């Protein structure tokens, strides 16, 4: 749909950073070099669970070139956390949101809790010396009993991983909406199944890295590959016991994140501590092996799902029990449990929902946020089971989804208010584009087609991150700079925000520069997670541009002898509406304001406050975002019954984008989501034996190449909100939510085997085929 009311919004604009990135000019954390810079390395625990009895670093310290060796004793001893909500509330709001214990330290204080836990850190004049020094640190451990199995974590006598966490429970949730028992009693069919998902590693192509430097006044500046500078600033200020304003976090170019660079498994803490001690800049870049062994994973989940349904396919009740393997630390744990429960019920009309979620500690690398956070795993269960139900009832999978799909205006059991919803269109269009009916009527052997749907939030209001700010300032030549806290990690936020600003101000896209993500300069924004960039950041940028425009109009009104209300801005000019001959270039207005007027440099400010309720972990109720995205996708696969290998040939995705700012960029997000979702469906799993991750290289892990990639057809469904014509929904995560289940359903359609454990490897398919043949 071509949007008539916008001039730059809705256009396939090329990336703002395109030239920098194709010429090698774009500098990422590891490309930075400061005078006197040292190189840091981290010593990690070889044991899954142990008490540190003694650390002798004297030999390491004596090695030529070593400038510092630090252990937990050299830190402030203060823990930090990823979900550290209450600390940042204004005093009068104390107690309004729950407190989650902070338990992570930059370097272990007394105990290590997984193979890879940080024990000591070294700074040296070069990397090789730092590595050599690690070998010279002697650590005496007292081994403790360990546990890798989430099912055993809550058992009597299981090793206690954190003193505070009874039965190793990191967090738990229990919600009961509607009348679940009554719902089941009305059902004609009840299905119960168990599904499991794997530990997927993020593998952004850029390994995590940073350069930290303290100045003479004790102020820390850190260039970090984080997705969330403001959150990182809070964590650093806490761990280093410094005021937040003494910590400046800047993101250079960031080489992807897909959720992982939100979590605090980045070397920023150790680099900052080393810099503080050595008074020199310190760089730490993770190796690819550290990326696999010492950074968070997608939460593996065991999902018990029970669904009641009437003969005609109407869902009557759902009960879902989830056990999430949290690994050693909290990270985003409480949030993943919240999201898993919340998204259980989002997509379909489901008044009766009961959910219990437990996230437990085990002696493994922690689990954290990953693209489609918390929504992907239960979606795999719900959508797989819905196909099983449809088959039992003899209903077409597309029909059963249309029958239960949410409609605009619906409120879900947990009080999500769905104002706009293009789910029906997404389902219909993706089915139509793939010739769903025809393909089902005349199946080709070993070829299959499967559908799945999903939903996601456009940013989530979780204190303290409940708003986003922006500033827009005019240069004397009429060009504009936007200051935004939205972090560009490759998803294209700088570009789409520039489009929004250009559109509002009537200047050219090329006239807008973007400075993003520097806690010293850019207004507060939570960071690039839970898909808030376009919606929150976009609304804030638009408001700031509007404010600047208002200032322009006031000056221009004097010059044009018109009323500010009668002015409009377009083509770098300000016009009197209806009198095209009465116009003045924007540049002239900016200069006039500076020289003839009162000197106002034309700077707009704007913000977006989440039009939503804060996340309530306890009740699960509340409308936590301003806009929900919806998607449907149809997978077309082929299974080789000799080898068991499934191949995704094509994925057709319908995505409710709301106001689509940049279709090219949205397609890119959808393709990337399908790619990552396909990886999770078919290939990806960090395999662990005795606490050791075995596949620590790209090859062993099986990150797929261009040869494995499917064709992707993207269908943008632009819903319109009559109350809010500017509603740009998320596009970066929601698509991935439905990918694994669409592929799984297509595999069933192809060869009649239902795999309930991700990833669906050739071994699993062959085994299932064998059993089926018996």
């Amino acid at each position, binding site marked *: 749909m071509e949007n008539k009311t916008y001039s730059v919004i809705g256009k396939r604009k090329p990336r703002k950073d395109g030239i920098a990135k194709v010429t*090698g000019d774009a500098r990422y954390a*590891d490309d930075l070099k400061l005078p006197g810079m040292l190189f840091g390395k981290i010593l990690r625990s070889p044991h899954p669970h142990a008490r540190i009895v003694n650390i002798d670093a004297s030999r390491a310290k004596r090695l030529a070139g070593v400038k510092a060796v630090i252990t937990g004793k050299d830190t402030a001893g203060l823990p930090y956390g990823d979900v550290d909500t209450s600390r940042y509330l204004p005093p009068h709001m104390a107690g309004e949101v729950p407190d989650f214990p902070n338990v992570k330290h930059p370097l272990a204080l007394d105990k290590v809790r997984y193979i890879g836990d940080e024990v000591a850190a070294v700074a040296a004049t070069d990397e090789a010396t730092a590595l050599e020094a690690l070998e010279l640190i002697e650590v005496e451990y007292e081994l403790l009993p360990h546990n890798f199995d989430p099912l055993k974590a809550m058992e009597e006598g299981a090793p206690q991983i954190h003193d505070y966490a009874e039965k190793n429970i990191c967090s738990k949730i229990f919600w009961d909406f509607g009348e679940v028992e009554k719902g089941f009693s009305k059902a004609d069919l009840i299905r119960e199944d168990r599904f499991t998902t794997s530990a997927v590693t993020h593998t*952004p*192509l850029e390994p995590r890295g940073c350069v930290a430097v303290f100045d003479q006044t004790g102020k820390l500046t850190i260039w970090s590959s984080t997705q969330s500078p403001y959150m990182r600033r809070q964590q650093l200020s806490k761990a280093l016991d410094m005021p937040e304003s003494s910590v400046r976090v800047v993101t250079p170019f960031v080489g992807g994140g897909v959720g992982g660079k939100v979590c605090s498994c980045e070397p920023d803490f150790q680099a900052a501590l080393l810099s503080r001690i050595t008074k020199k800049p310190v760089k730490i870049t993770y190796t690819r092996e550290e990326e696999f062994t010492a950074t968070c994973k997608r939460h593996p989940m065991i999902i018990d799902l029970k669904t009641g349904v009437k003969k005609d396919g109407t869902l009557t009740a759902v009960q879902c029990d989830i056990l999430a393997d949290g690994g050693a630390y909290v990270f985003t744990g409480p949030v993943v449990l919240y999201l898993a429960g919340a998204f259980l019920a989002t997509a379909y009309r489901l008044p009766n929902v009961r959910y219990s979620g437990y996230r437990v500690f085990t002696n493994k690398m922690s689990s954290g946020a990953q693209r489609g956070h918390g929504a992907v795993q239960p979606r795999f269960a719900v959508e797989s089971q819905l196909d099983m139900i449809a088959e039992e009832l003899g209903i077409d999978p597309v029909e059963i989804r249309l029958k239960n799909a949410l409609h605009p205006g619906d409120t879900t059991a947990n009080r999500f208010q769905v104002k706009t919803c293009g789910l029906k269109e997404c389902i219909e269009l993706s089915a139509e584009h793939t010739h769903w009916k025809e393909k089902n009527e005349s199946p080709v052997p070993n070829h299959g087609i499967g559908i799945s749907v999903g939903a996601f939030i456009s940013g989530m209001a979780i204190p303290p991150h409940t708003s986003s700010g922006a500033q827009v300032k005019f240069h004397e030549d009429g060009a504009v700079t936007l200051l935004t806290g939205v972090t560009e990690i490759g998803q294209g936020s700088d570009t789409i925000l520039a489009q929004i600003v250009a559109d509002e101000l009537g200047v050219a896209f090329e006239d807008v520069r973007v400075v993003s993500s520097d806690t010293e300069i850019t207004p507060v924004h939570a960071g690039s997670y839970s898909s808030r960039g376009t919606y929150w950041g976009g609304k804030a940028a638009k408001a700031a541009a509007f404010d600047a425009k208002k200032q322009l109009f006031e000056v221009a009104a004097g010059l044009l002898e018109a009323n500010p209300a009668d002015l409009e801005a377009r083509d770098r000019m300000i016009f009197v509406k209806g009198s095209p001959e009465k116009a003045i270039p924007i540049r002239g207005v900016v200069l006039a304001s500076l020289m003839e007027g009162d000197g106002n440099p034309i700077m707009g400010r704007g913000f977006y406050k989440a039009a939503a309720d804060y996340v309530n972990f306890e009740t699960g109720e509340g409308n936590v975002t301003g806009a929900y995205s919806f998607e449907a996708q149809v997978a077309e696969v082929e299974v080789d019954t000799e080898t068991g290998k499934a191949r995704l040939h094509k994925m057709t995705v319908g995505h409710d984008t709301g106001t689509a700012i940049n279709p090219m960029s949205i397609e890119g997000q959808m*393709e990337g989501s399908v*790619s990552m979702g396909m990886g999770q469906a078919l290939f990806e799993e960090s395999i662990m034996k005795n606490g050791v991750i075995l596949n620590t290289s*790209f090859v062993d892990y099986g*990150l797929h190449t261009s040869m494995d990639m499917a064709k992707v057809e993207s269908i943008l469904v632009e819903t319109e909100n009559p109350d809010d014509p500017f509603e740009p929904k998320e596009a970066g995560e929601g698509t991935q939510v439905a990918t694994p289940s669409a592929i799984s359903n297509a595999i069933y359609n192809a060869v009649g085997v239902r795999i309930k454990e991700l990833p669906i490897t050739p071994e699993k398919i062959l085994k299932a085929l064998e059993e089926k043949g018996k």
Partner: protein
Amino acid sequence: MDNHIIELKVNGEGYEVSVDSYRTLLEVLREDLGLTGSKEGCGMGACGACAVLLDNVVVLACLTLALSVEGKEITTVEGLAKGEELSPLQQSFIDHGAVQCGFCTPGMLISSTALLMKNFHPDEHQIQMALSGNLCRCTGYVKIVEAVKAASEH
């Protein structure tokens, strides 16, 4: 330590550098010559982010010893544009949305430049083959393949 003074020819310019025998071409490019366009995604030959051209053939700079390339023409991503003018492939990557985080982009451009040198009109499969040593987490390769195809039709 085994130290050698060698002459490297990178993007048409000559450099005299002193290198230890164990140092990789990637380290020397990035640390000694300040050419940080070539990226280290794995350091183990598995991701292609460090790809450069050696006499117009793709090599992985993380697996290549600097000493072994003396006297050869090395082209990195910094050498693909002619001054301000982007190569057709670079322009096509921008125009077709083939760049997201950009970390794989230098390697992708090097591999596709090499492909188009020997095959003016590759089909989709040939492009996928040529890029199969370059990993990308962001794009799903879709728009990268499209960009190479479009550049070849240029």
